[in-house]
């Protein structure tokens, strides 16, 4: 369990980090290292140079901008979880974060690292897909922006530019209206990789009718996936409404079959978790005050 030898640098700016990444085709970014270091230890990854981005001040922090809630790529997951801004503005992300690893890994792991790794079971990635957050890279002198559906291509495969550096992710702000979020997953142990996960966000109007409904499924396909439950708009989100919408949304879903869980189990679990996440989001939205109330 010892990595192969590599060189290490810890630049203090995005420019210097990009220079270092461009200098060596086998260079890799290290942020929290909570996934990369095990891969190094097992020699599944053999970079020649590690570029540590965890002390680049521009990459750290959470702030509200005109376009949304900006989270620097090297912001620790624990800090995002403790953020009041995230809790209020991006409640779905706040619900997803406690499911990411456990306290010691969240203390080191970063929001950007989880996205860049592109694991189909990553909860933060699922939140970006559901909410349509934008993913920003610096590639040499250029800034490049991706939408999640163009970014996540397959298991740990993303559209990230070679030698590029993930700088930030921007989540849309809290929508108007009565907002609720739900996040549900099942794994063999708490904090383990999920067999299936589901996240949902609901907006209700003053009298409790659904205005918008968003749903996404993780761990069941090659990438975290947003699925269409727009048919729930206009309904009162009864159990039957939710069941029908989930059934339609998951029709034809491609499901992974592996050692950990069979395809049929994953499909059933995904449907059940989707239902639970939507119901959780509804309950939370109903608990918020109607704007006119």
């Amino acid at each position: 369990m010892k990595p192969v030898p590599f060189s290490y640098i810890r630049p203090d700016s995005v420019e210097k980090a990009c220079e270092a990444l461009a200098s060596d085709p086998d260079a890799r970014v290290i942020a929290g290292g909570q996934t990369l270091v095990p891969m190094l230890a097992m020699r599944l990854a053999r970079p020649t140079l590690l570029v540590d981005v965890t002390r680049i001040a521009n990459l750290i922090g959470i702030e509200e901008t005109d376009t949304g809630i900006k989270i620097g790529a090297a912001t620790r997951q624990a800090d995002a979880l403790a953020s009041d801004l995230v809790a209020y503005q991006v409640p779905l992300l706040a619900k997803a974060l406690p499911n990411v690893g456990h306290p010691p890994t969240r203390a080191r792991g970063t929001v950007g690292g989880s996205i860049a790794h592109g694991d189909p079971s990553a909860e933060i990635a699922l939140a970006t897909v559901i909410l349509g957050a934008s993913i920003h890279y610096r590639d040499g002198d250029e800034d490049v922006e991706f939408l999640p559906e163009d970014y996540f291509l397959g298991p740990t495969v993303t559209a990230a530019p070679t030698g590029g550096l993930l700088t930030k992710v921007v989540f849309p702000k809290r929508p108007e209206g009565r907002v609720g979020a739900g996040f549900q997953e099942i794994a063999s142990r708490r904090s383990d990789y999920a067999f299936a996960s589901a996240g949902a966000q609901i907006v209700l109007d003053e009298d409790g009718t659904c205005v918008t409904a968003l749903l996404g499924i993780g761990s069941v396909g090659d990438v975290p996936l947003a699925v269409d439950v727009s048919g729930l708009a206009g309904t009162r989100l009864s159990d039957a409404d939710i069941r029908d919408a989930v059934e339609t949304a998951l029709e034809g879903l491609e499901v992974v079959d592996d050692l950990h869980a069979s395809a049929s189990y994953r499909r059933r679990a995904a449907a059940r978790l989707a239902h639970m996440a939507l119901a959780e989001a509804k309950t939370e939205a109903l608990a918020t005050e109607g704007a006119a109330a």
Partner: protein
Amino acid sequence: MKVELTVNGCKSEIDVEPRVTLLDALREELGLKGAHAGCEHGVCGACTVMVDGVAVRSCLMFAVQGDGLDITTIEGITRGEGELGIVQDAFCETHGLQCGYCTPGMIIAAQALLEKNPEPTDAEIREAISGNICRCTGYGQIIEAIRLAARHMRESNTLRARKFAE
């Protein structure tokens, strides 16, 4: 590569390859064998140490990344030479260990929890040690130990006094 580590309040400069984990540097370079090398790939939690007051896995960090950070190992939480810390005492009292392999990691995870949260619920205790595997105890007595340590810490004047002094 040279790096200055601050471990248990002492600064030492070591010269290690970048691929040397913080865990290996603590054990091999600094002779602190308290953090255990279990799985060495971030699964078991036996190597848990505190970095800037929070529990992290020392096998998932390279020593060169520890530059300028405040690192605390199990050796650093005792009350004095030849004495045990409050959490360590509680683990003995409730039989919160059998073979002892996971114990340093469990105790550091508990210590990090109790420094932030003096009155944790059982759910919070479980969450705090959810990254630490114990193959002997079945966890029941470990949770009991952390509950007891929390009570002792709340009741301890000296410990509170030390916190205020800091």
